[in-house]
């Protein structure tokens, strides 16, 4: 099979095409979908998923996982409220919160790479731990009186137009992560680790150190999203973002990243996030109930795990036949 053909039938191109199709169909057939205000709403809805998905993609490519991200977000949000109540300035709190998120990542990274524990077990543990700490910090209460120029920036658009302010942030970070993952030796080493960690180690890649920093970055991004989440809803709460880790992992897998590591691309993941968000938004505008929404997204996920395997099998079959034909000639 030619290289171009292979690329066209790869899962991330399929998902890209599917996303564009959904966007076109929804704009044509769903009332109020294609408006600039709805665009702003959608960008705000996909903001937390897309940002956390950036480092998550790298982590899953190396064959690991980080399930503690939503709890890190909650802890950061709690800390943000608590620090604000202590009278610190918001300009101090925001970088501090990113650092708090990074520290959560340091703990994960140390347990996984320093002690060699499996990432699934560790991050399920810290998922509970960080959420628990979040409730210790703020309890059931909420802190809401954040400065309007900050909360307004997160929900606002550039010059009151159609482009949300946070879109700049998404584009800059996505470009940054995309370049690192797809155009640097570091990025390539992630695929090597995911394909075979031992081989990667013997070929001189510092596997443990690489993974450690991925978790630190993942924590820091979760911290940043904690800040953005708090400002978007002007509400610092311990239960903020609960369950978000599943949405992120879902989007990453839908984007064609293999849960076993070694495979996947960032453009595919970005398309996956957009597809999920746009579908939910369109179905909601059509008054489809929440349960039905869950069924749709659930089925998409099962398909996203199933279809790439089927296409690989079909492709393998095709290749064998060609080989046989060549041999018989």
């Amino acid at each position, binding site marked *: 099979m030619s290289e171009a053909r292979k690329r066209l039938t790869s899962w991330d191109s399929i998902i890209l095409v599917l996303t564009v199709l959904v966007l076109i169909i929804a704009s044509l057939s769903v009332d109020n979908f294609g*408006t600039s*205000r*709805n665009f702003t*709403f959608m960008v705000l*809805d996909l903001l937390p998923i897309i940002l956390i998905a950036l480092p998550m993609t790298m982590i899953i490519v190396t064959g690991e996982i980080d399930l503690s991200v939503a709890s890190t977000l909650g802890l950061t949000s709690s800390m943000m409220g608590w620090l*604000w*109540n202590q*009278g*610190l*300035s*918001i*300009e*101090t709190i925001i*970088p*501090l919160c*990113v*650092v708090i998120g*990074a520290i959560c990542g*340091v703990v994960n*990274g*140390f347990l996984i*790479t*320093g002690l060699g524990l499996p990432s699934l077990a560790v991050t399920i543990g810290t998922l509970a731990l960080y959420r628990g700490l979040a409730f210790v910090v703020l309890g*059931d209460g*909420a802190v*809401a*009186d*954040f*400065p*309007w*120029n*900050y*909360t*307004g920036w997160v*929900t606002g658009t550039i010059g009151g137009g159609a482009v949300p302010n946070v879109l700049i942030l998404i584009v800059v970070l996505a470009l940054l992560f995309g370049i690192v993952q797809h155009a640097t030796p570091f990025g390539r080493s992630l695929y090597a680790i995911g394909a075979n960690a031992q081989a990667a180690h013997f070929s001189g890649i510092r596997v*443990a*150190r690489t993974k*450690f*920093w991925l978790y*630190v970055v993942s924590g820091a991004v979760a911290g940043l999203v904690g800040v953005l*989440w708090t400002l*978007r*809803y*002007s*509400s610092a*709460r311990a*239960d*903020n*973002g*609960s*369950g978000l880790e599943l949405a992120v992992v879902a989007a990453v897998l839908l984007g064609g990243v293999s849960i076993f590591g070694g495979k996947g691309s960032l453009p595919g993941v970005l398309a996956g996030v957009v597809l999920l968000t746009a579908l*939910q*938004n369109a179905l*909601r*505008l059509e*008054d489809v*109930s*929440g*349960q039905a929404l*869950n069924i749709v997204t659930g089925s998409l996920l099962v398909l996203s795990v199933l279809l790439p395997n089927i296409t690989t099998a079909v492709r393998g079959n095709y290749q064998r036949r060609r080989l046989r034909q060549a041999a018989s000639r």
Partner: protein
Amino acid sequence: MLRSPRTLLSVTSAALLVAGLTACGGTTKDSNTNSGSGTQASAAADPNAAIKEGLKIAFLPKQLNNPYSDVETGGGKVAVDELKGEYKLVGPNDASASSQVSYINTLIQQQQDVIVVAANDPNAVCPSLNQARAAKIKVITFDSDASKDCRDAFINQATTQGIGESLAKMALEQAGADGGEIAVLSATPNATNQNSWIEVMKEELKKPDYAKLKLVKVAYGNDDDQKSFQEAQGLLQSYPNLKVIVAPTTVGIAAGARYISSSSYKGKVAVTGLGLPNQMREYVKDGTVTKFALWNPADIGYLAAFAGAAMASGQITGAEGEKFKAGKLGEYTIGKDGEIVLGPPTEFTKDNIDQFNF
């Protein structure tokens, strides 16, 4: 990675340094003057305006498929039908703080006329509710209020004062002329609404009318059926002379009544408080419970729909003192901060309980 603690240390300290530097002269809680207040109703009310037909009125409860809110929104549907409007019910599957926001955004896109919402978090919904109001949608809250600068009116099921007084009054009636020991079986120790009702009740008990009542204990069943049952049991072991258990929670009153009805205390110890008629029916019929109270949740939704329609038709703007008619419930007056109080709780006895199904 352990080879690079120095890198980590320097990164962290650099971040802290930046943080420390920006600490001087930043925006703090004290310097923060919140300028983002909501749009205030500016148009004048016209009490004689006719109710518009075909109003699109959407209900957004805290969470779908909750029996209590189903009854509330059911009342809303009845009202919207009477008003010849278009009823819609949407809502999240979980009651988390931010899950309602995308539903509000959808309702804005669909250009509803009225959004009736029970806010999961008073502030998390505010930016979107204000966007809705900017899009000329009237916002009515029920059940749990949003911050008052992002909604037009709030339907309050009953005042804290009213519920506390009602609890004290029912306790006295149940204890009889001789009075005696009473105990409270509440939800969790930090449930805000329960605690404020109990506070009012305690204030009431200080009045001379209640001199014969003695509150011996406030127990907590954590709104858990089994725990509440055990707490009721414990109360009677510790206070054998107890006359009345007052449970201001629907879980507590049902568990308490179940224990009393199955024990030797049946007929000697009274159970009262706030409960759902469907849960309490058998205990009222078997004589364990003679009277309990609750607001009628269907009336809350009914009143909310009428308030929303009156507002969308220009009869009222949400200002204090304005009046409007709410169908079978009669006339209501808007109170301070746009609050509309449904009225005193409905009392249920064996004579009227069969008229209620919720």
